């Protein structure tokens, strides 16, 4: 089943930042409830945007969200100290967002992840920057899986983010990431593929139609999770429909449920 990581609780979003600054719990609770109703499988929590306040903001957000969230949380921070605190606060096995192959990030995250039971998003980013070919993405994903396996994280707890890049600056960026996802899934059938999608449409008009068309292509290649706004009804409808078309929806049950609830309209 496709897993949606709801991206809305992020202090780089204006309204969320204001709610966090004012400790407006009602706003946050409402937002999380809406994401849950829309079908989020994880709620991402990022408190990084108010520089110097990340620890206290993360703590307050978790105190606020934890009691009402029926799904696990995705703890989103580059700071192992913040993650350590957050990890101790959550009840359900969390997802950690994220580790990468950038030296500083990698060396900080490995000791934190060692011995922990959690899922982890692994970015195909290293100190050379964004990957430049499908082979490059696959090589980075391979290193990430091997290194995470070494510290006891099983392959099926790893969510590889192949890093979607804008098609506007290079017409081959779509095919590049699709090829990479196919190769990674062939090599590691158990690994998950996730990531943001909206980078694909950077610099082009009518971005939503690009994003939701692209997600269906990515799903065919093997993407089984995405970090998106679950309140974007159209992309959610595309995901449910594609999931059915790819054979992941017995007797078309989720699709029909979506139609009856009004979530899927043509």
């Amino acid at each position, binding site marked *: 089943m496709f897993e949606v990581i709801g991206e809305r609780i992020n202090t780089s979003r204006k309204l969320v930042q204001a709610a966090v600054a004012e400790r407006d719990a009602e706003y946050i609770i409402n937002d999380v409830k809406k994401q849950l109703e829309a079908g989020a499988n994880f709620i991402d929590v990022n408190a990084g945007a108010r520089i110097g306040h990340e620890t206290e903001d993360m703590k307050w957000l978790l105190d606020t969200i934890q009691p009402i969230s029926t799904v696990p949380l995705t703890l989103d921070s580059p700071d192992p100290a913040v993650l350590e605190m957050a990890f101790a606060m959550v009840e359900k096995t969390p997802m950690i967002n994220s580790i990468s192959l950038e030296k500083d990030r990698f060396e900080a995250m490995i000791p934190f992840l060692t011995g922990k039971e959690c899922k982890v998003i692994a970015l195909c980013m290293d*100190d050379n*920057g964004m990957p430049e070919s499908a082979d490059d993405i696959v090589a980075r994903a391979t290193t990430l899986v091997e290194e995470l396996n070494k510290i006891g994280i099983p392959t099926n707890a790893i969510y590889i983010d192949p890093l979607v*890049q804008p098609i*506007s*600056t290079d017409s081959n960026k779509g095919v590049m990431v699709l090829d990479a996802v196919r190769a990674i899934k062939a090599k590691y059938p158990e690994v998950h593929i996730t990531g943001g999608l909206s980078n694909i449409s950077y*610099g082009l008009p009518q971005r939503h139609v690009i994003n939701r068309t692209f997600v269906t292509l990515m799903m065919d290649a093997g993407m089984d999770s995405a970090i998106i706004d679950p309140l974007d009804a159209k992309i959610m409808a595309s995901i449910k429909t594609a999931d059915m078309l790819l054979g992941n929806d017995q007797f078309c049950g989720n699709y029909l449920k979506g139609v009856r609830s009004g979530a899927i309209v043509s």
Partner: protein
Amino acid sequence: MADFNAIIEALVACDTDKVTQLVDAAIAEKVPATDILNQGLIAGMDIVGEKMENGDMFIPEVLMAAQAMGSCVETLKPLLGEGESTEGASVIIGTVKGDLHDIGKNLVSMMMESAGMAVHNLGVDIAPEDFVAEIKSKNAQIVCLSALLTTTMPMMKQTVDAIVESGLRDQVKIMVGGAPVTQAFCDEIGADGFAPDAGSAAKMAKSFVA
């Protein structure tokens, strides 16, 4: 009399073949290379930048226009006289330390080059002291800082502070940009300008050195 408008129109239409043909024809008619460059190509790219800023042209089209211009500039270069360099104001551009994003910065760099500036693109993950050193060695008038992450935005402030400490602050205008960057943040860290897209960045840079 050369028809600069035709060159401008062809460039805005992203018609590479036509731009090349018109520029070659102008050269054959002995139109001064510097006029072709300034009144034709750079004027055309100004319009492209404006259209980008207004959402009438998009990145792939801007890339096509810039490529068309670039190939014509190569043809014109040997014809430019002494002192008629293709290069105007000296600009330093880079993504700040700890940040590896380069797409937005490269677009800004390209638009500034197309506006006739001498752009020195330092790349990504550039430390404050390296920006300072490059301002000195390239005698820069404009410094552009890019950051795509909320976690690397503080490095913009450190870079601005380093420029102040180096005593070079009065020599340069500092521009900032990148997805999480805002005008308020620009003001807060003491930079001179924020631009939301590559077209407006080029326009702003021109206004700083006008």
